């Protein structure tokens, strides 16, 4: 089974026995990655956050953050498509801010806030279903407009945060 350097144990398999993972390893892995965000391919993003290993502690904060993010998204549910646009653009702006801040934060900040809260807050599935319901040219316009807004929001969030920190 291939393992990734800097990560304790094989992915997946280690997750089930994750409870046995020494906490120190998790912190070390998280810290190492936090020190060099954007380093290699493994410097994955927040969804792929793999800062820390698959320990029970990380799974717990991902679950808690995901639940809270989902509830926050649910508050926008009554707005329909406008709500989907709002959570996705807002969440994308915040991920830009967070990823610049992550190296300065606690190792669990990325799994909790990035993977959990923001991952649970934003949604791709509702966006895709919105497009199916709109259909035709309106769907195309909606898909493109949101993706442009979201990517711009992430880039802007990161740029503003870098500037403020400088």
């Amino acid at each position, binding site marked *: 089974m*291939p393992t*990734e350097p800097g990560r304790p144990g*094989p*992915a*997946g398999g280690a*997750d089930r026995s994750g409870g046995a993972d020494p906490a120190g390893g998790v912190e070390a892995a998280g810290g190492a990655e936090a020190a060099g965000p*954007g380093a290699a*391919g*493994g410097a*994955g*993003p*927040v*969804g*792929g*956050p*793999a800062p820390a290993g698959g320990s029970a502690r*990380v*799974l717990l904060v991902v*679950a808690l*953050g*995901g*639940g*809270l*993010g*989902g*509830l926050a*998204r*649910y508050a926008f*549910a009554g707005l329909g498509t406008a709500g989907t646009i709002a*959570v996705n653009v807002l*969440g*994308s702006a915040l*991920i*830009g801010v967070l*990823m610049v801040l992550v190296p300065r934060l606690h190792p669990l900040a990325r*799994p909790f806030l*990035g*993977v959990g809260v*923001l*991952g*649970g*807050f*934003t*949604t*791709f*599935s*509702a*966006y*895709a*279903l919105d*497009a*199916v319901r709109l259909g035709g040219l309106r*769907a195309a316009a909606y*898909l493109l407009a949101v*993706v442009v807004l*979201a*990517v711009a*929001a*992430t*880039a802007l969030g990161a740029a503003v945060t870098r500037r403020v920190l400088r």
Partner: protein
Amino acid sequence: MTVLLVFAGSALGAVARYLTDRFVRGRTRATFPWGTLAVNVVGSLLLGCVAGADPAWAASVGTGFCGGLSTYSTFSHETVRLLEDGRHGQALVNVAANLGAGVAAAAVGCLLTR
């Protein structure tokens, strides 16, 4: 009650997304974000399937699990990361693949359960 279903579904979806991404990253050296594409397509298919279901299913599986499993913020972040790294082609393919496959999956889900 609905709030609890949404919370539990989202929590489970987020954990499934995290484990999927770790699994994919552990097996490929590619810079392309395959893990996020996978969860977005599966989440869209599943949401299409429960789109017309009764409120409890729609809340727990649709709003909860599918919303927690799929993600826009990570998709957006990964696209920006690819652009910053000068991988413009991959960024474009990432957007096209997520939008194309995600919408197609949602449409298939709706058709399957109509």
